[in-house]
């Protein structure tokens, strides 16, 4: 009986021991598991990334000056061309006819002018003859040897001859003007004829050909891209035209170095430098909603090296280096959070007393306390530093932003351990929260 009691006691003790052991072995740690990173000094580069397209520095859109059917097309897309090289020919037949017709008209007009000049000479002779006859009749009248009627007839003949001469002279002037008109028309027709043969104005490559042999070319207008027959690009100097967000544009300046990656040429980067910064925002494309569009500015980055096989219109990304810092204290970007802190009248942070117990993960952050006179509430950037298993919100002054790190101007020192994740934990974390540091993510 005594042995049974001992067994019961031992059994109970063993069970209680197991319960106690289980409680400690499986003890649920307080606080969320977080990743931390030690603060170190680093070299940082502030990069502004923007995407856009590769474009040649010179791009010529060739349009027709005269309309007509294309009878000879000498180039294809991608062909290299030199300045003055024949590109295409528009049917010259109608224009040549216009030139021939104009020449004939001019000749006819010149012949007619000669006839009219002859008629002027004839009228002048007739006038001279009538003037002499009138003078004779006036002498005879003074001697009373002729009738008044004869004298008046002779004077009328003079006036008629004068009038006829003036008429003939005007006809000559008019014909001369007509000849000038005919000559101008002929020149115009000849000029148009000269324009049916289109030649390259630059050395480059044909980047676009919108016309086929046999199709009819129409006269090009600025507002109608459909009238462009050929596009020629001078690929000796190429540039990346990228769109930079308005928030980044103040950091971009002329001459800054950039690395350009071209989607079509992966695994390679090309050097360039900023040569142009737009002063006006890029207008949104027609049909797009203005309110939903980000405001971007055009920035041109000229490539400093030759890129074989590059084509205009390739999409690219330019990483413009806007600032460089060597050996500065840096904090991982995901570690930075914003919290409302209370400042006193001297602009010093007023720290609330630590909570008496750790906040449960599901427990909401307590509402901010009432301000006392002189206190203000300000949104402050900072990081959560792990100290004795609890997090402390440390305000920081940030400098430039690198790829993964912010420069810290004040607030942290090398060796501090800051919480970098998980993202939701950093977002909902509050001063004094307990945390467990994940050793795998230290």
């Amino acid at each position, binding site marked *: 009986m005594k042995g049974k009691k001992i067994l019961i006691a031992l059994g109970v003790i063993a069970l209680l021991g197991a319960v106690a052991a289980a*409680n400690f072995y499986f003890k649920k740690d307080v606080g969320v598991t977080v990743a931390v990173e030690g603060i170190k000094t680093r070299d940082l580069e502030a990069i502004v990334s923007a995407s856009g397209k590769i474009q040649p520095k010179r791009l010529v859109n060739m349009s027709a000056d005269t309309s007509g059917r294309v009878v000879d097309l000498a180039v294809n897309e991608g062909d290299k061309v030199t300045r003055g090289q024949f590109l295409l020919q528009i049917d010259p037949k109608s224009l040549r006819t216009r030139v021939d017709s104009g020449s004939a008209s001019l000749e006819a007009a010149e012949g007619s002018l000669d006839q009219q000049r002859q008629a002027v000479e004839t009228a002048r002779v007739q006038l001279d003859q009538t003037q002499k006859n009138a003078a004779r009749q006036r002498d005879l009248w003074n001697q009373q040897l002729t009738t008044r009627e004869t004298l008046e007839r002779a004077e009328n003949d003079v006036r008629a001859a004068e009038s006829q001469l003036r008429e003939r002279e005007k006809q000559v002037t008019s014909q001369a003007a007509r000849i000038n008109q005919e000559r101008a028309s002929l020149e115009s027709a000849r000029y148009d004829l000269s324009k049916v043969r289109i030649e390259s104005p630059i050395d480059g490559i044909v980047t676009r050909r919108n016309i086929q042999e046999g199709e009819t070319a129409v006269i090009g207008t600025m507002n109608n891209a459909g009238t462009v027959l050929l596009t020629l690009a001078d690929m000796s100097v190429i540039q990346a035209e990228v769109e930079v967000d308005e928030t980044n544009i103040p950091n971009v300046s002329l001459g800054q170095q950039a690395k350009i990656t071209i989607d079509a040429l992966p695994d390679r980067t090309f050097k360039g430098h900023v040569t142009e910064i737009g002063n006006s925002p890029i207008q949104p494309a027609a049909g797009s909603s203005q309110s939903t569009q980000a405001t971007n500015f055009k920035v041109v980055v000229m490539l400093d090296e030759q890129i074989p096989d590059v084509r205009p219109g390739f999409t690219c990304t330019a990483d413009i280096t806007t600032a460089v810092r060597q050996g500065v204290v840096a904090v991982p970007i995901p570690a930075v959070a914003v919290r409302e802190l209370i400042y006193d009248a001297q602009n010093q942070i007023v720290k609330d007393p630590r909570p008496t117990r750790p906040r449960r993960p599901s*427990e909401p952050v*307590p509402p901010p306390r009432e301000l006392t006179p002189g206190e203000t509430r300000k949104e402050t950037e900072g990081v959560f530093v792990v100290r004795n298993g609890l997090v402390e919100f440390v305000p920081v002054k940030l400098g430039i932003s690198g790829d993964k790190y912010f420069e810290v101007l004040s607030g942290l020192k090398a060796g501090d351990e800051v919480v970098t994740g998980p993202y939701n934990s950093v977002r909902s974390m509050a001063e004094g929260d307990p945390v467990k540091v994940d050793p795998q993510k230290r």
Partner: protein
Amino acid sequence: MTSPKGAASLAPTDIVPPKGLLARALGVFFSPRDTYADIALRPRPLPALILVLALIAATQYAFLSTSVGQRAWVDQALTQQEAWGVPVTPQSVAGVERMQPRAAIVAVVAILVVAPMVMAGMAGILIVVFNAILGGDAKFKQVFSIVAHSGFIGVLQSVFVAPLNYARETMSSATSIGVFLPMLDSQSFLGALVGSIDLFQIWSLLNVSIGLGVLYKRRTSPIAWGLLTTGFVIALIIAGIKAARAGA
């Protein structure tokens, strides 16, 4: 002295020597059958009840007087709130935290008021089942005395758990089956179920079963199965409600 009818054939009072309160308290653990035979013959529930309540209340008071205990009490209150599907809000947190300094008093009052009512209620239900349904003829005082004496197991639990809770800085059940299954989410049905099944409660029910078996001259195992099944069904219902409310 006349023996109650249900216990008349157990043993004459002059052969079974009477046990003192301390002997009964120890006997509940080491020789429950003999102890309950004595309790059935000489039912004195009040001293046991007072001692049980005093010890449990003192243990709780000692634990909740510490800052660790008070923090654990707040945490437990909020955990229970969450477990029943009530969202934790800044207002509810503030309300619980206002009570934090008075946690020890609140717990002692709750023990002194609620525990006797629970024991009396349990004794009443057992009387109804064993007397009215199964034809027994024990008195309420006898059954209540058995239930009250089984409370010494609760005292042991309280004494055992208090330092554990202090070390763990929590009041979450340290003696439920759930401590062996930490992988279960406490807000899931299974997690809530294993968290509701307490080893000391099982022990206590088995102990009461022995007492009832002695009192009603019945085999212990059917009574134990009956009580354990009832307890399990109650745990199932509680777990179901908790899981449903937590999920909602």
